[in-house]
């Protein structure tokens, strides 16, 4: 009987605590000079925006920020409809979207808040130091299976990928593999840390990670996007000056007429503090 009572109590306690939190929220919103901003869009930018919003709200009690994911397309649609103040984007606007904004007579400001770059990594014992995009595509689609085909030792290639739920998985597929599917014998691991660990201890391994994760246990490869004429070494510098090909800018986009309202958030993202969060979350800062 006692147990039954306990079970009945649990949801009750839950409900009570929820109610309490909500009233607090309302209190914050009703403050006189409070700003409440909604940010919506890319799931790649989401962890960064979330962390920045948390820090900003801790520092300034008058600012209330709501961050919602859903994808770049969702964010831009919301910006067109006016249901969000800032759209997060991991790509440039498409022509179609630009047209929609001009139709609505809205001028959109794009601010690059960080870069996202991927490095291809191998075991430090591997002799291969550079690969072309075509070779990478063939390795990950299973057409090249031995390191000697790309100038290395006679050893089997063990390719590691992220899980299909990861944005990195899609980015690598679109950017490097020409939208072809991964071979089904590619090993997939749930986290970047696990990929570094696995590549570090497996001789014939190859994998890809965010540029910011580089460690000494693995070797980074230079890649070429012009059939082997020039190979670019991955580094924060080459990602910033856009010479490194496997990288993309991350944007905050907002309506110019709305600029005053979102200024606090955009300024914070570009501030040294905000840029520090960029490196913490695993992206490439602007400076």
């Amino acid at each position, binding site marked *: 009987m006692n147990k039954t009572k306990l079970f009945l109590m649990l949801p009750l306690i839950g409900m009570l605590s929820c109610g309490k939190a909500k009233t607090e929220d309302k209190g914050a919103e009703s403050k006189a000079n409070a700003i409440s901003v909604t940010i919506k869009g890319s799931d790649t930018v989401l962890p960064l925006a979330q962390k920045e919003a948390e820090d900003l709200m801790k520092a300034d009690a008058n600012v209330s920020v709501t961050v919602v994911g859903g994808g770049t397309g969702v964010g831009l649609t919301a910006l067109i409809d006016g249901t969000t103040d800032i759209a997060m984007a991991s790509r440039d606007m498409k*022509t179609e979207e630009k047209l929609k904004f001009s139709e609505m007579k809205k001028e959109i400001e794009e601010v690059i808040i960080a870069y996202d770059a991927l490095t291809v990594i191998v075991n430090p014992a591997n002799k291969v130091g550079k690969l072309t995009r075509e070779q990478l595509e063939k390795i990950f689609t299973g057409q090249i299976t031995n390191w000697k085909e790309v100038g290395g030792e006679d050893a089997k290639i063990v390719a590691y990928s992220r899980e*299909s739920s990861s944005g990195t998985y899609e980015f690598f597929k679109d950017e490097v593999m020409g939208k072809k599917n991964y071979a*089904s014998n590619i090993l997939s691991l*749930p986290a970047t840390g696990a990929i570094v660990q*696995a590549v570090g201890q*497996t001789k014939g391994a190859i994998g890809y990670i965010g540029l910011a994760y580089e460690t000494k246990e693995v070797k980074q490869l230079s890649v070429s996007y012009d059939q082997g004429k020039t190979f670019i070494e991955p580094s924060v510098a080459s990602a910033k000056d856009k010479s490194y090909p496997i990288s993309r800018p991350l944007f905050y986009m907002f309506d110019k007429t709305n600029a005053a309202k979102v200024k606090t958030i955009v300024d914070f993202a570009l501030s040294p503090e905000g840029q520090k969060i960029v490196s913490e979350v695993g992206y490439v800062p602007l400076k």
Partner: protein
Amino acid sequence: MLSSAATSITVILIVFFLFIEGAGVFTKKPIDDGFLLAVSVDNQVKKIKPSEIKDIYDQKITNWKQLGGKDLPIVLFRAGDITDYYTEEELGKNFEFFPDKINELIAKTPGIIAFFSDKYKAKDFKGRELDIDKIKVSEFLSGEEWFPTAQPIAQMGVKPLIYGTLWVSLGAILLALPIGLAAAIYLSEIAKKRTRSLLKPLIELLAAIPSVVYGFFGLVIIVPLIQSTFDLPVGETGLAGSVVLAIMALPTIITISEDAMRNTPRAMKEASLALGASKWQTIYKIVIPYSASGITAGAILGIGRAIGETMAVLMVTGNAAVIPHTLLEPVRTIPATIAAELGEAPNGGLHYEALFALGCILFIITFGINMLVELVTNRNSHKKH
């Protein structure tokens, strides 16, 4: 009384929910909602299998001849490629000519296969829309490729996942059962009281370690060990998963079987020893038969943990969705698949429902094992009395 009724109802509701969601996958086509695949009307290929569509878009099939059509190279087209064919002016300021242009393109390119949203399908559509069948139960179970997010056609074959789960669990139980039984016999019959009071809490402590810690331990210690022992190109294998799961299942098996063995009446053991049987003979003629049902219970709970375990397996088995032939190959298990993919699968979508269907399969497997063991124990106990 009340709480047991509540528990049963909850269990039934969960199973019901699982099967309702899982069955949804068989009412859907493996193509994104609102999208279509179209070819030229002159194209003689009537039917393309989902796996063939994937090969076409991966450029493994590049000529219609390979599918029984004319000798004509296949031209791939996705909606975003339209700018390769027409300028923005031709498409109109607001893309109002988009449907017409796709129409025109399909009409004048006999080798085309086009994937685009049906929003852009013109009223007087001149191409032929490809029929895509709903996913069949048999295809779902016997398909050998698992690409749930592939565009344009998702590949939903769960055979490699089922095989992966069974291989890893079987390996785990083959490793854990002998070791667990030996340890239980030692603890209950042979060990001195002091040794036991020291060892038993230690073994029980194993059960308290979070599974993700086991996973990391496996990735850092067991995986390299297996790689160097068997001289493999890669250490993330089914065997690594089996070893980690065996370690995780050991405390359950040891504790439960040891308790059962210690329940053997003292009188029975003493009678056996008095009749001149050795200690070992007493153990396997008296103690083990008497505690058989307890030992099986321990084994079932061990298997249950092995089959359903997620995190540890996700980290050490490599998760490649290929049908394994030995334990020394990477495998992908059902729980690992659900855990890794459910977070990003859109709610209510095809991928989401396919993961629930995987959950149903897992449920049926564990349910089957439990029934089997129940049957075996019942038969044994009848024989005994």
